[in-house]
């Protein structure tokens, strides 16, 4: 089976909410969070999806 979608990275302000296999980026401020997310989006050709205000994931579609 081919996996069509994959979470490439998790970017968060609150490390207590995440764990697991994907690379996790912990940021201090909302600005930093958005910056890091935008960069990873551009680098990986993925899409940044927001799960909450302080938790973003980058998904390859």
């Amino acid at each position, binding site marked *: 089976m081919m996996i069509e979608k994959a979470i490439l990275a998790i970017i968060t302000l609150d490390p207590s909410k995440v764990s697991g296999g994907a690379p996790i980026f912990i940021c201090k401020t909302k600005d930093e969070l*958005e910056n890091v997310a*935008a960069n990873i*989006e551009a680098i990986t050709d993925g*899409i*940044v999806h*927001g799960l909450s205000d302080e938790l973003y994931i980058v998904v390859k579609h």
Partner: protein
Amino acid sequence: MSEFTYPILFGILIGTLLRIIMLRTDYRQYPTYLHGKTIHISLGFIAAALGSLIIPALLSKDYTAVTILTVAATQFREVRNMERNTLNEVDEFELVSRGKTYIEGIAISFESRNYLVMITSFIATFVYILTNLIIAIIAAIICYILAKILMSGSVLKEVVDIEYKDLHFDGAGLYVDNIYVMNIGLPERQEEIMKYGMGFVLTPKNMNTITTISNLGQRQAILHDVSIALGVFRDSGTPALTPIIKRDLDDGRLGVFLLPQVRDVDKAIEIIGKVPVLENAIRMPSNSKAHNKEVPANDD
């Protein structure tokens, strides 16, 4: 020269002319240039020649000559393959792809146009041999009109109502009217989408249409046609900026999210309305016997 020379030449001429008339470069942008056109005109010429030769062959009691028609059928099926392959190859590099259903539709119509040419040439030659040139020309014109009617499918505005609706975000979720489209996390991207995006809602006019427009190929065809006509605000490596169509599961309406370069609501509505209803997407549940069968009343 035999007595059949003029009828055959006439048939070939009429057939080739018909192929040229049917070969117009329209909003589908295909075929665009001389090379593509040359292929189809040459094939049309061959089809016309085959069509014109049948009656003279039969009249000269050369019955086995008709078997050449089987060669013709193989030949034109090949046309369909050729179109399909070319379009599939090219499709990978489109910013908004055509989709397989649309490609299949184009390929089928290219094949069937050759058969129409063959039938027209056949009839034109037949009538010329039976009567004279003038009546043959009239017959050819009638064939052309019939071909025109046969080749014109319906378009989207006949089966759906198209309305412009504003896009809005609920948290990270992008909505067209009340139809959820996708999740966009970055505020920066959200701003871009609000700035460049447009939303439309397609409301199906009846039961059959609900199934037809839910077809993924039909939806892709809408996106492709609009992106060709109005341009598209995206690039490779920006998957967040992707025009997309989602369906309202409750009533079968479609929420169309577009990123056109030319932001003109009326033009966009007109272009969506002119998207062909793809042959392969058409479903007619109301024609099914089971669907129309009345449920027997429970009397006990």
